[in-house]
């Protein structure tokens, strides 16, 4: 009787162990793919580059705070159908050459991004949103969707703060040393945008985006302007 009870408990324990393992197996599939196919270019653990030589060697955007940066739906679809975000690549100096009127991008130095199948993209996106570096920075922000930029949005972006010097606001218009921002509203969480504009260096100490010391209200307007841009679907 006693022995039978003990065996029963043992069987139950082993069964639940196996069951737990199979669940985390499914959940970890995305993480496994990340470890196998992505860590060679993407930093999943942090920290961000602390010196210029580390910055120059970075092969892909840091993903250790992916869960605090991207929208999951965007990750899932972009990983299946990647489109260039940084017109001049990771470190722009490596991808430009002198032209007649200005320095120009040398497309022969740029390559496309690995593409994932739908189920892999789904698993990887689910794993990426678990990576929550810099949560403290995100918690400090509150997005105010009600603060409409009105016509001032573009004015601020182009003239007052000079953001357009480095960012495209539609394909073929704007600067090229930073990521395009005409799909950023679909790509990024609003709190990430607020926090990044407040202090790019808090996220990436050596990055070549300056801190323009934008007051809070105007930051909300800039972010809502960027969100409105993405609703124009320039990428389709």
């Amino acid at each position, binding site marked *: 009787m006693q022995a039978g009870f003990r065996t029963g408990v043992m069987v139950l324990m082993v069964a639940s162990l196996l069951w737990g393992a199979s669940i985390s197996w499914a959940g970890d599939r995305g993480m496994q793919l990340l470890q196998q196919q992505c860590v060679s270019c993407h930093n999943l653990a942090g920290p961000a580059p602390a010196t210029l030589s580390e910055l120059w060697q970075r092969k892909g955007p840091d993903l250790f705070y992916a869960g605090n940066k991207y929208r999951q739906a965007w990750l899932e679809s972009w990983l299946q159908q990647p489109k260039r975000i940084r017109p001049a690549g990771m470190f722009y*100096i490596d991808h430009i050459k002198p032209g007649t009127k200005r320095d120009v991008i040398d497309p022969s130095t740029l390559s496309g991004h690995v593409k994932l199948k739908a189920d892999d993209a789904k698993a990887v996106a689910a794993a990426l949103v678990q990576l929550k570096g810099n949560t403290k920075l995100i918690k400090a922000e509150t997005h105010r969707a009600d603060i409409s930029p009105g016509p001032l949005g573009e004015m601020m972006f*182009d003239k007052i703060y000079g953001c357009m*010097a480095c960012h495209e606001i539609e394909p073929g218009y704007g600067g090229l040393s930073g990521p395009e921002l005409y799909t950023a509203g679909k790509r990024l969480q609003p709190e990430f945008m607020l926090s990044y504009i407040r202090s790019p260096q808090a996220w990436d100490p050596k990055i070549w985006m300056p801190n*323009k010391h934008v007051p809070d209200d105007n930051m909300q307007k800039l972010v809502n302007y960027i969100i409105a841009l993405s609703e124009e679907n320039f990428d389709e």
Partner: protein
Amino acid sequence: MNRYLSIAILCLSFVLAIPAQAETAANNYRTYCMQCHGLKGNGMGLNIRDMSVQPRDHTDAKSMGGRSDAELFKVIKEGGLAINKSALMPPWGDVFSDAEIQDLVKYLRKLCQCSHEG
């Protein structure tokens, strides 16, 4: 044993507390300035196509000679607006130490091969 441990921790805390290492002016210029001022420093950068005010040609002795070192320091640290110039010239005070900015001023003087002609 305990003493060794605390010494080890002390050493480690020194290593971790080392402030961001200063970068050379050439490397800073390459990373932060060339995107607008160009690979050759002549104002023909990657970003200039749609900019309403064009970046300064840092190799131009005439215009660069018109600025004092203090003005150059100020415009790098606080941006174009601080010297009544365009906001398209960004402030870099959150990226560089004052010593790094002083090095950049010297670097600009080499690029223009000029000094201030008050």
